[in-house]
């Protein structure tokens, strides 16, 4: 056994900063009076911002640490930046919301940092032990956050999320056990070596399938999506915004890394399963969303549908020629999704009143007349979700479909286009309500909420004009 060296610590430096800061904050929070919990929010956001700087300093570096347990590479840095941004957006959205809903407690922000740490560890994991630990570190704070309001709906959402999340963990652990049984190791690279030597393929395939089931729950892919609408609807909206982005990114980057690194040898089995999963997720998510009247439930089904689009990037993962483009497309789409998703949830939070009022799609009637800027922002997010130009969503979908076609899965790409058309129906219904119906909506004005809405709306439009730049950025992040 070797002692950890500086390289080991530098590999996970942002994580060390974040976890140390959150432990300190737990203590500091005790001394902050109940009426001034915004200080905790500020300190938490500061910690995330500092970590973001340190992550930015890591750009271009790559190393492995702790006996190949964690890895630092372009892929992990790209994901970490996205995750830290989600954490910052999550705190910005929560800042005013928790006050308004009377749940202003310091733990909220600290739990978000803990969860972000878990997500970042997930992106850096190079061993199934770390994948498991990171999965739990990101999930357990989210279970608590989902039940944070202490109302029946919120608690119900917390219990449902907890039971199904723990159920999924069971699958991940058992899958890891089977993979360990067939290869004698939990290190991703060692699994790939052992698997290519042809040891016990069946056990490995079953293990990989169980892992897929577990992660399928986490990223809300059909047929493991049933919890999503209930949890997203019942949880406080600021928590929903955070978990629908952060947990999804973390789940997908872990899946990408595990499959692309460890399981290329069983891609012939896995590709078919992933194809079916991706297709089902797109179809079910988009079609069920049509019948929703509650905006939170509609966005929950929309997040399921988007999981299907991102899964599309996985399908050709065993094909050496296209795996790079398809992973790039997947990462690019995650970026698109994060910006659009946070923006849309920020608008939802602006309209939400106490006691769950203001959450029906009909409550958006007349928004354009009274608050044109907010309505325009919401329209941009809805168009970006559909994939309508000139928004980032269009570029993201274009890259995804192109990658699918290059990988020889034209059928899946066509299905993606068709389901996107279907999705226009329910996204545009929001726009129609805002612009063509009469109504008298009231909104909450909060500085950070406005900033988040504005920033994401502008980014969604402007970045779509320089997609090549972002694509190259994502391309440097591809797993070699």
């Amino acid at each position, binding site marked *: 056994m070797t002692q950890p060296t500086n390289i080991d610590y530098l590999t996970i430096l942002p994580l060390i900063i974040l976890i140390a800061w959150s432990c300190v904050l737990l203590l500091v929070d005790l001394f902050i009076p109940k009426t001034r919990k915004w200080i905790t929010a500020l300190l938490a956001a500061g910690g995330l911002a500092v970590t973001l700087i340190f992550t930015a300093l890591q750009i271009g570096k790559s190393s492995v640490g702790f006996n190949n347990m964690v890895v630092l590479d372009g892929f992990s840095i790209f994901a970490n930046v996205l995750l830290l941004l989600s954490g910052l957006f999550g705190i910005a959205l929560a800042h005013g919301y928790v006050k308004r809903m009377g749940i202003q407690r310091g733990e909220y922000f600290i739990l978000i940092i803990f969860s972000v740490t878990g997500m970042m560890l997930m992106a850096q994991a190079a061993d199934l032990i770390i994948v*498991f630990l990171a999965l739990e570190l990101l999930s357990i704070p989210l279970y608590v956050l989902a039940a944070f309001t*202490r109302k*029946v*709906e919120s608690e119900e959402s917390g219990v449902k999320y907890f039971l199904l999340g723990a159920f999924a963990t069971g699958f991940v652990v058992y899958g890891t056990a089977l993979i360990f049984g067939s290869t004698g190791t939990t290190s991703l690279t060692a699994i790939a070596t052992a698997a290519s030597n042809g040891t016990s393929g069946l056990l490995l395939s079953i293990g990989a399938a169980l892992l897929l089931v577990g992660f399928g729950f986490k990223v809300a892919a059909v047929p493991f999506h049933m919890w999503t609408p209930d949890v997203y609807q019942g949880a406080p909206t600021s928590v929903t915004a955070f978990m629908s982005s952060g947990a999804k990114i973390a789940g997908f980057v872990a899946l990408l890394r595990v499959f692309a690194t460890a399981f290329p040898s069983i891609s012939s089995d896995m590709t078919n399963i992933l194809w079916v999963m991706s297709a089902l997720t797109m179809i079910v998510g988009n079609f069920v969303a049509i019948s929703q009247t509650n905006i939170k439930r509609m966005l929950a089904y929309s997040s399921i549908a988007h999981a299907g689009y991102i899964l599309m990037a996985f399908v050709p993962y065993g094909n050496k020629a296209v795996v790079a483009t398809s992973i790039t497309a997947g990462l690019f789409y995650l970026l698109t999704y994060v910006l659009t998703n946070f923006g849309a949830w920020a608008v939802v939070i602006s309209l939400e009143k106490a006691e769950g009022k203001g959450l029906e799609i009909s409550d958006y009637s007349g928004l354009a007349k009274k608050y044109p800027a907010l309505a325009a922002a919401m329209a941009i997010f809805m168009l970006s979700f559909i994939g309508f130009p000139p928004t980032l969503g269009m570029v993201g979908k274009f890259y995804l479909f192109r990658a699918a076609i290059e990988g020889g899965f034209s059928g899946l790409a066509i299905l993606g286009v068709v389901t996107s058309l279907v999705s226009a129906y329910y996204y545009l219904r929001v726009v129609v309500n805002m612009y063509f119906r009469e109504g008298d909506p009231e909104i909450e004005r909060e500085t950070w909420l406005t900033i988040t809405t504005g920033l994401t709306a502008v980014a969604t439009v402007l970045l779509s004009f320089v997609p090549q730049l972002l694509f190259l950025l994502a391309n440097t992040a591809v797993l070699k």
Partner: protein
Amino acid sequence: MIPVDYYVALSAVLFSIGALGVLIRRNPLIIFMSIELMLNAANLAFVAFGRSHEIQTGEPFFGGQIFVFFVIAVAAAEVAVGLALIVEIFKTKKNINIDELNSLKG
């Protein structure tokens, strides 16, 4: 000596019982126990596979057992949060039947 296969078969049976329990039972506490059963089935498989690997290579090998420690520790953390959530919802609803947790639908 009992062959390793037997342990693995037992762990598969335990895992299936756990998974079925989650799907069939309606009390969150029992569901939670079933989840623990699934985790412990995985632990058994880890130890069994670790031992078989040790016999094959003839060298001491701790990979499986170390994972088991992590699983036990994390499961304990999950119990803390999970039971707190279940107690909290019991305080609000005076009832913990899963079928009656239906205030969210659509």
